[in-house]
């Protein structure tokens, strides 16, 4: 009578197969194939060019279905010898919020429930610039500028030593070679540590699926920038990465009616930013924290 007992080797093999199957069942039974694919998608920086192409194709199809438009999703890398910086002249800002809504439109923000905006315009009493805790960003007068107030628009300051990147437990956010801090929305787990770490309130969270009207969608997007996000992803200003890597000014710069907003390459001695830093009185927000922002506020001097 042959021995029916398992050998040690057979037992181990069957046990490990069962375990693998057990792990796979929840993944493939509780979600669709598409969701499973998303779950298994690699980190953006670890993808090969071929894998990037596949992901882009998948996204393009999905966006076309959802928004009824053909999307161009770019994965353009940083331009060599660039380090982007931003300038904002406080003596000119009138607090009209044109930049906020230009940004919303360009970067495909959720319009309501949740309403997400990357720029907040703070209103401060004149002569009280240092006390940010006394600022107000729900101000709503008939006309701006108001007497006795100044306006301080704040968005991601693109720190050179960004605290938000340090705290991310899964490396879903990082600094690109051109200085822009970006998020891989698919890799983000939604823990919001980065939101807590940012001293500028530069990041916002998708508490629900974003609401973007079909007719207002901007189909020209960057994978790490303004492509439509999903629930549970953190997002932030990217200096309009989709525009600046092609040499175009960010949307907020073009929208400003008073020419308050400036943009340029810190490594180019002829850039607007170098002109400002050389000739104007500049300061950076919360400089003492050592985050080295690349966002320079300046005055007429």
């Amino acid at each position: 009578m042959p021995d029916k007992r398992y050998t040690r080797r057979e037992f181990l093999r069957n046990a490990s197969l069962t375990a693998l199957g057990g792990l796979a069942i929840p993944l493939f039974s509780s979600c669709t194939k598409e969701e499973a694919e998303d779950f298994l998608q690699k980190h953006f920086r670890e993808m090969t060019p071929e894998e990037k192409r596949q992901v882009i194709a998948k996204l393009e199809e999905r966006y076309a279905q959802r928004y009824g438009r053909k999307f161009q999703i770019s994965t353009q890398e940083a331009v060599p010898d660039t380090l982007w910086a931003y300038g904002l002249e406080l003596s000119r800002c009138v607090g009209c919020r044109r930049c906020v809504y230009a940004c919303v439109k360009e970067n495909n923000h959720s319009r309501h429930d949740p309403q997400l905006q990357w720029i907040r315009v703070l209103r401060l009493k004149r002569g009280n610039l240092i006390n940010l805790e006394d600022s107000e960003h729900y101000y709503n007068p008939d006309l701006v500028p108001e007497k006795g107030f100044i306006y301080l628009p704040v968005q991601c300051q693109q720190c050179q030593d960004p605290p938000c990147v340090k705290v991310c437990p899964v490396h879903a956010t990082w600094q690109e070679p051109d200085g822009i801090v970006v998020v891989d929305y698919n890799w983000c787990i939604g823990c919001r540590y980065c939101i807590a770490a940012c001293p500028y309130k530069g990041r916002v969270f998708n508490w629900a699926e974003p609401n973007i009207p079909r007719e207002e969608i901007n189909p020209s997007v960057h994978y790490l920038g303004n492509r439509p996000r999903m629930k549970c992803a953190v997002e932030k200003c990217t200096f309009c990465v989709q525009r600046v890597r092609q040499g175009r000014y960010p949307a907020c710069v073009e929208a400003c009616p008073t020419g308050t907003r400036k943009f340029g390459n810190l490594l180019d001695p002829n850039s607007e930013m170098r002109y400002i830093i050389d000739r104007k009185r500049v300061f950076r927000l919360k400089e003492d924290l050592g985050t080295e922002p690349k966002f320079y506020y300046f005055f007429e001097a």
Partner: protein
Amino acid sequence: MKKAVKTIVFGMLFSGVCFASFANGAGEEFPVAPPPMTEGLFPCSNCHATMEVNRTKRVLKEEHTDIKLHHAETMRWCLDCHDAKNRDKLRLYNGDLINFTESYRLCGECHGPQYNDWKAGIHGKRTGYFMGPGKRTYHLCAHCHDPHQPKFKPIKPEPPPTKPKDS
């Protein structure tokens, strides 16, 4: 042989183009957006060519009644900037006539620091491409400041963000 001739001709043409554009850029030239004119008024000579020049400072009652001069008005009158003989041109202090597309030169005669900043793209606004082959557009002083009353007027702000709901 034919190819060589072609290359030479092409080369000459190309260098010609280069020189031409170089000569253009030799001064200070800025690609500007079309100047903000009231529709239907330009060219001014349509009316002014047949009119007599009246240099007295006065309140305009028939035409241009919408213009309220509030720009050092005690010292200034239309013909300080608009040329009396050729109304389609502006007039610099030294008598040179310039087009409306170059009006920044006229503004820069008094507002030097702003003019310098504007040339560097700091005062005012540039749109389009800041690098690469794409087009960059400068906004003229007059796009933001009405030359006749240059002070900025207050504007209506866009709506504030919604407050988080209390729950």
